[in-house]
């Protein structure tokens, strides 16, 4: 039988160390909503979302109260909208109508985000894919709760450099379109390589075409718990360090597994996956950077950071895999800048640069995330940053992503306030050297060879 020490340990994690279930995300296929008429498509989408997800928020909150663990976000991911709208959307503004429909549905069911305003263009773009991508700046400006993602490459297909170049322009346009709000439109746009079909986390969540009609995916969190337990073994050897992280990840993930199975049973929707993640928030003590410091770095960005992060990420997976029947999504430690107070401190101290963050993305989930850069950064440089991340993902067979905000009117030294879970960020320096001639080349980078791994 359970004993008092175990009960108190669990409740301490929840009450003092910010243990929570970060998101229950219901993936819903919208393939059967497609119609040649835009109005019918929008009506079908609204009807399906508000039917399937009508009890999602209530159920998530109930589970949270009964088990005494916060279920922070309840969200929806949908079939990439470029596919759903391909028969009826003839211009970018048609896609914006779909975005507004999604936003209305999100507000009706009470979810804080719907992900999947997306296009999967890792090899080539259909006409509809391009129309959706061109609609992103307007769609992000006129909606509140929609997240957009574009998958521009994969290990199997290589990198679609035409899409990369276009995304450089789109991110600049989205920043300009929302310049009165610190270019917040860009905080809801992510460019991915090897995007998973079952990711529950925003902004990159979408319900891939390989998925069932509806599914429940859950993202766990708990950097504060890992950090706290590492404090108790300060100075221990690597074996003890790794074993401790692994055991803690197991415990955190078991809570996610329980919540996922409960949500699945109560909503009558099959359980998909648990995303094994350490997802920080701006709250003090809920920081992945603090774990890196506890491992022994003065600040993230110091020499040794990549090794420390690799170790952390691997142990989280090893512990988490044992705790869950199905694992998927992005699974790993997230290193967003604006959403992690320790990362912000490291940037302000001059310890952390975009280049070091790029190295860190080679060994963790997911990529350059929530990074504010000067508003006058050329679109080609943004495309170059995207291409670099996509190359890391393509070659290393992992998911990588770029969510970067060229804040209109701001420059290095300024701070940008996004609010809520998105936090705030110091504007970071981008290399002033140009890659424009490379980015202006047409076509795609071929898929990589899978042998001679050097």
């Amino acid at each position, binding site marked *: *039988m*359970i*004993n*008092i020490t*175990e*009960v*108190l*340990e*669990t*409740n301490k994690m929840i009450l003092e160390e910010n243990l929570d279930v970060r998101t229950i995300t219901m993936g819903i296929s919208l393939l059967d909503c497609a119609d040649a008429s835009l109005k019918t498509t929008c009506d079908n989408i609204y009807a399906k979302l508000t039917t399937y997800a009508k009890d999602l928020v209530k159920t998530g909150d*109930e589970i949270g*109260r*009964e*088990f*005494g*663990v916060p279920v922070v976000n309840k969200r929806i991911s949908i079939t990439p909208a470029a596919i759903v709208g391909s028969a009826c959307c003839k211009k970018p503004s048609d896609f914006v109508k779909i975005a507004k429909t999604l936003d209305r549905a999100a507000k009706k069911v009470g979810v804080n985000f719907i992900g999947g305003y997306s296009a999967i263009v890792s090899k080539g773009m259909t006409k509809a894919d391009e129309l959706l991508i061109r609609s992103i700046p307007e769609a992000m400006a006129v909606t509140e709760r929609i997240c957009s993602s574009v998958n521009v490459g994969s290990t199997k297909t290589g990198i679609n450099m035409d899409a990369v170049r276009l995304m450089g322009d789109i991110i600049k346009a989205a920043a300009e379109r929302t310049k009165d709000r610190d270019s917040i439109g860009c905080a809801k746009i992510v460019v991915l390589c090897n995007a998973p079909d079952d990711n529950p986390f925003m902004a990159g969540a979408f319900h891939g075409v390989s998925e069932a009609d509806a599914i429940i995916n859950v993202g766990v969190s708990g950097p504060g718990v890992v950090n706290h337990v590492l404090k108790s073994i300060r100075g221990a050897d690597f074996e003890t360090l790794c074993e401790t992280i692994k055991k803690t990840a197991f*415990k955190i993930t*078991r*809570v996610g*597994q*329980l919540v996922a199975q409960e949500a699945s049973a109560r909503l009558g929707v099959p359980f998909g996956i648990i995303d094994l993640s350490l997802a920080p928030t701006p709250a003090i003590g809920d920081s992945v950077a603090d774990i890196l410091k506890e491992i022994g770095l003065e600040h993230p960005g110091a020499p040794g950071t990549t090794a420390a992060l690799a170790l952390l990420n691997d142990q989280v997976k090893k512990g988490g895999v*044992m705790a869950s029947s199905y694992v998927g999504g992005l699974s790993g430690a997230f290193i967003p800048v604006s959403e992690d107070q320790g990362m912000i401190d490291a940037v302000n101290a001059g310890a952390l640069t975009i280049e070091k963050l790029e190295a860190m993305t080679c060994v963790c989930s997911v990529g350059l995330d929530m990074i504010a850069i000067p508003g006058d950064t050329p679109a080609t440089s943004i495309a170059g940053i995207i291409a670099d991340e996509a190359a890391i993902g393509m070659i290393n067979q992992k998911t990588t992503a770029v969510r970067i905000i060229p804040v209109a009117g701001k420059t290095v030294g300024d701070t940008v306030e996004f609010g809520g879970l998105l936090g705030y960020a110091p504007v970071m320096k981008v290399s002033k050297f140009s890659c424009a001639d490379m980015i202006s080349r047409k076509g795609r980078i071929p898929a990589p060879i899978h042998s001679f791994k050097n």
Partner: protein
Amino acid sequence: MKKAIITVVGKDVVGIIAKTSAYLAKNNINILDISQTVVQEYFNMMMIVDITSCRKSFEDVAAGLGELGQAMGLKIRCQKSEIFEKMHRV
């Protein structure tokens, strides 16, 4: 059997167990096990209870216990037992 775990944390005062168990008896909740420790003057108690025959909803019981705790200056939480079993047992 549907089990729940009740935890009581706070400054030790007279009547914590009496009042909590009176509330449980009134709601037809059977106490299966009680353990307690005092850490740095703070009272920590855990009860494992059977809620199968309770007529109130789980959320109402949890809210009622929460209010009872507040009246005594304590934190009383009532959680379904699976969260602890899943976390600490393979």
